[in-house]
């Protein structure tokens, strides 16, 4: 049997609220499949299972807040025989659910659920257009539009009850609510305060000649359809991932009183949310992705981060973070490390600067790369080697 527990989706997350089970006892689950939705201060998060088998029993009812690590359910792994599980022995702190939930299951994405809440639409009245009838954001928006005064037929389709409803408030779909904003701010405050309290940061910076990378990127994008263009951010992230292979102590987390290096390189990407706030979900095994795959993953991640549809593993797995404020014209950014990680890399804006090459002063596109690192696990010499390695990779963009 395998326990399915309330995950830690950030260093300072101590508890989470189970919002919804997407599977019921007796259902088959596959490794990586999303089985539950959990509410945290930062987001509603889809939680995957890490083993294949049959969901034997659930111990926590929707709406229950439980500490991180609480057993939410048990999964009978493939090959294991059915086991009688004593519910009273369940280590979960949540209210045991001795019978499966009887009401029909509502398939709805976290972002759609949040949007429905914001627009005052009852999800139970919405017909989902996604796989298996899953309700998506566009279904909620359509229902809200229909309710706000679209033809009666459309309203009837969105609202089977046919009940008269008030017009939906014109809430911007991707804007966080004030409550969500405040909760996210608290989560960021807790994490960053802990970081500055516990982690002895040191900082290094290096200006990188980007002429080869910019020229290569321009040529690449000229021959690509607009939907497959690459951003310089993808090159930065890949260069960081490859550099971590050579300085593995920075691909790590600080657990207890020791450094634990990670095998997989999962670069977290700092994503600013519209209206404020920040998340830094991981792109798994970043170093193994081609630039096309990385760009696709990045677009997908940004889109889901801004629609509050991130997955648990994306929030719990980053082994380092990359941040960039280039769009705002900032030339240097020295980040605060996200615990339990031990480093964060910052990239400023691409600017043209005088650059001396072979005795000549030439205009050159450059970017300032910075590293904030944990002095408990590394020193200036190794950190400098890491930045130099990023630089070296950016001089060979075709190899990224």
């Amino acid at each position, binding site marked *: 049997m395998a326990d399915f527990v309330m995950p830690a989706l950030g260093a300072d997350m101590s508890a989470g609220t189970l919002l919804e089970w997407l599977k019921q006892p007796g259902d088959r689950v596959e490794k990586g499949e999303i089985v539950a939705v959990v509410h945290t201060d930062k987001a509603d998060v889809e939680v995957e299972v890490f083993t294949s088998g049959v969901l034997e029993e659930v111990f926590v009812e929707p709406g229950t807040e439980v500490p991180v690590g609480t057993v939410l359910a048990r999964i009978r792994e493939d090959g294991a025989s059915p086991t009688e599980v004593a519910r009273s022995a369940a280590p979960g702190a949540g209210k045991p659910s001795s019978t499966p939930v009887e009401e029909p299951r509502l398939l709805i994405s976290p972002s759609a659920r949040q949007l429905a809440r914001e627009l005052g639409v009852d999800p139970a009245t919405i017909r989902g257009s996604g796989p298996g009838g899953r309700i998506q954001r566009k279904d909620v928006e359509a229902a809200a539009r229909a309710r706000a005064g679209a033809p009666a037929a459309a309203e009837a389709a969105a609202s089977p009850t046919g009940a008269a409803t008030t017009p939906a408030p014109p809430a*911007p*779909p*991707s*804007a966080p609510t004030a409550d969500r904003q405040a909760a996210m701010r608290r989560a960021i405050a807790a994490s960053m305060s802990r970081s500055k309290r516990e982690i002895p940061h040191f900082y290094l910076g290096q200006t990188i000649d980007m002429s080869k990378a910019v020229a290569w990127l*321009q040529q690449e*994008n*000229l021959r690509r*359809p*607009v*939907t497959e*263009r690459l*951003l*310089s*951010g993808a090159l930065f992230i890949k260069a960081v991932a490859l550099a971590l292979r050579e300085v593995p102590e920075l691909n790590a987390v600080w657990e207890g009183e020791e450094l634990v290096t990670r095998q997989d390189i999962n670069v977290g990407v700092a994503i*600013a949310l*519209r*209206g404020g706030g920040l998340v830094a979900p991981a792109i798994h095994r970043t170093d193994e992705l081609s630039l096309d795959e990385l760009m696709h993953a*990045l*677009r997908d991640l*940004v889109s889901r981060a801004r629609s509050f549809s991130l997955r648990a593993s994306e929030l719990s797995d980053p082994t380092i973070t990359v941040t960039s404020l*280039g*769009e705002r014209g900032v030339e240097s950014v020295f980040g605060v490390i996200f615990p339990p990680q031990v480093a964060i890399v910052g990239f400023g804006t691409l600017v043209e600067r005088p650059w001396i090459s072979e005795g000549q002063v030439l205009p050159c596109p450059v970017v300032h790369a910075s590293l904030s690192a944990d002095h408990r696990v590394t020193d200036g010499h190794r950190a400098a080697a890491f930045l130099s390695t990023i630089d070296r990779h950016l001089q060979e963009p075709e190899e990224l």
Partner: protein
Amino acid sequence: MNQDEIRAAVLHALSEVAPEADPATLRPDLSLRDQLDIDSMDSLNFVIGIHEQTGVDIPEAEWARLQTLDQVVDYVAAALETA
């Protein structure tokens, strides 16, 4: 497409990347990036949206010069005229 249709198509593409954008308060002569806090990923998605709405592909080098809504609309109109 006439100018109004092009503007509507561009605004539709913009609404996909910046849902909070209010066409009524958006200044067409000021920088979109400054008014809407658009980052590089938003910009790329905006260009893709314009392509989907109008068929016009704005090259990367041109995009860097297009700052305002009016400039984007004028660029798309010119591209459609010469197509």
